[in-house]
């Protein structure tokens, strides 16, 4: 081979390749070929698992879900026909999602802006960064336990049911606050990614027409990072509506709203409640309610919510691609 390169014939006749000139695996080492096969198999396996979950839940859900379940609260009953639906759980999920993300989104965006655009002193930025990574790794049940300590304190008694000086520490406020902490790292990470992807010369272009750093952030950088901010919010929402541990510890112990004293809506928000995840957990065969058909119905609703969020992330990104971006 080497000598033929050195003494190249003046006009090598082009030889027609026997097959299409696509790189084949014929020259690969055996271990590489096995690796490729394993990758394929694993990929297909995970696709199959995902499809199985979705299809099974859809099938079960459609079978058991009745529209009346969405508007009837759970009641005590001897059979699944008598025990009502899960409207309180559905509403509860919407409430914790709204409250949780309205804390996590501004806080997360603020942290991300500070980390990317300011980040001084460097030591503090590094500490903040690793703190957020640590939070992302903390199991939510640990956060939930920590939440009971905080929200059972007398100082925060106004946020939950209080009886003879004993603060229960279980309320929508308590659960949403801890759920916001679960969602925060996702918002921060996604927003940071969006801000870091903006080329430095775009910032400088804004400074170079006399804009301040804060005006640049507000009018140029955050709008440019909007798709990533939205993605972070959606991912955070997904975590919030999917979390069970915090709900069980900081909100649950009931399948209905348990309003306490105070003006609407604070009487509800200060009281205990439930969400779909809690309902599924309790209604599953291992839970206290033991009504698996309704567990499937509720799980189906939950799944639809998560799929809708995923679709929304997709839409946001596709729309962002239409606006275009800078060459770096």
């Amino acid at each position: 081979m080497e000598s033929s390169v050195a003494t190249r014939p003046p006009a090598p006749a082009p030889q027609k390749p026997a097959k299409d000139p696509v790189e084949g695996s014929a020259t690969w080492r055996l271990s590489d070929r096995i690796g490729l096969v394993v990758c394929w198999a694993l990929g297909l396996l995970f696709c199959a698992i995902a499809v199985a979950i979705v299809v099974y839940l859809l099938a079960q859900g459609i079978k058991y879900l009745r529209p009346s379940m969405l508007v009837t609260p759970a009641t005590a009953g001897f059979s699944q026909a008598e025990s009502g639906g899960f409207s309180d759980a559905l509403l509860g999920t919407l409430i914790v999602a709204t409250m949780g993300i309205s804390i996590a989104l501004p806080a997360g965006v603020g942290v991300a802006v500070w980390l990317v655009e300011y980040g001084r002193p460097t030591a503090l930025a590094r500490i903040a960064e690793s703190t957020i990574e640590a939070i992302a790794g903390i199991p939510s049940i640990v956060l939930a336990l920590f939440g009971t300590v905080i929200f059972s304190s007398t100082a925060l008694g106004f946020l939950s049911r209080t009886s003879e000086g004993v603060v229960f520490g279980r309320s929508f406020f308590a659960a949403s606050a801890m759920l916001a902490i679960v969602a925060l790292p996702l918002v921060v990470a996604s927003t940071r990614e969006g801000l870091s992807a903006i080329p430095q010369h775009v910032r400088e272009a804004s400074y170079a027409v006399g804009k301040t750093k804060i005006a640049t952030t507000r009018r140029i950088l955050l709008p440019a990072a909007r798709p990533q901010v939205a993605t972070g919010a959606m991912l955070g929402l997904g975590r919030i509506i999917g979390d069970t541990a915090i709900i069980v510890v900081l909100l649950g112990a009931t399948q209905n709203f348990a309003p306490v004293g105070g003006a609407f809506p604070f009487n509800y928000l200060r009281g205990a409640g439930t969400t779909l995840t809690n309902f599924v957990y309790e209604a599953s065969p291992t839970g206290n309610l033991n009504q698996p058909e309704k567990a499937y119905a509720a799980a189906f609703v939950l799944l639809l919510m998560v799929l809708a969020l995923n679709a929304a992330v997709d839409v946001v990104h596709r729309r962002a691609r239409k606006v275009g971006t800078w060459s770096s």
Partner: protein
Amino acid sequence: MEFIAAVSEFDRHIGGVSSGTSPLPPPIKRLPLEDGAPATQVAPGAAPPVGNGPATPGGFTAARRAIGAPQFSIRRMEIDDVSVSYADREAVKGVSLPVRQGEVLALIGPSGCGKTTLLRSLNRLTELTRTATLRGRILLDDVDIRQIEPTSLRRRVTMVFQQPNPFPMSVFDNIAYVLREQGSRRQRKKALEPKVHSALERAGLFEEVKDNLDHPALRLSGGQQQRLCIARALAAEPEVLLLDEPCSALDPQSTQVIEDLIVKLRDDVAVVIVTHNLQQAYRVADHVAFMYLGDLVEYGSATALFGSPREQRTKEYVSGAFG
């Protein structure tokens, strides 16, 4: 080497014979370097010099300069013995230059010679780099720029960058952003319209985008984006316009449009352009400053600097011996 290969390929193509007997003289000129090694250079300009070669070391002839002499010149900025260092490394070493309205000043030199740093120090953008320190004085209308608040200085000395970087909003809002007070959204569209239109007109973009002012600016072509950036820089009504290799990301036609624009603008604002492209400097500039390794090697009128450079290093650079 690439040039040689490309040219001989070209010759074969049109002449149908080997490059040695091509009827066209290859647009290649060799100059001896100090150590005797031959340097290869394509002669500047679109057309290769015909016959016995160019009259000047760089091959620049007066005929290719399309712009006339400046009508007037008003001193706007004065760079006085300015040195800029990044940490320990000195990027600009004691440079003194005048910047005049009515003229285009081009800063040329090989990569890393400090020309962009010098340009960025004119509106204190270097201060954004934490390690940068500046010594010497830069005067804008006889006031030291360090006594001017950075944001108001940067509205008087605006800048256009190497990469077109319109903001991710509509064409109209790109200009309106500059006109509005910092982050505010006050001042309705209607009130800003005349100023936005005039800025786009001055940048020669209005005719092309007047029906699409609401379209996202990042959807414009590269050349249009860059003219939008120029319009944006002009909207602040600056006294000095800084251009940092504004055409390096553009195709030849867009480059031509922007070069024409630069020449047109010189009466309204003092223009300083950094460029890698010697032909471009020759085409648009009235005065040229050649920098090398942070030093200002030579400063003079474009015809003088390209036609009869005084310094050996300038001669070598403009003739393509290095850079």
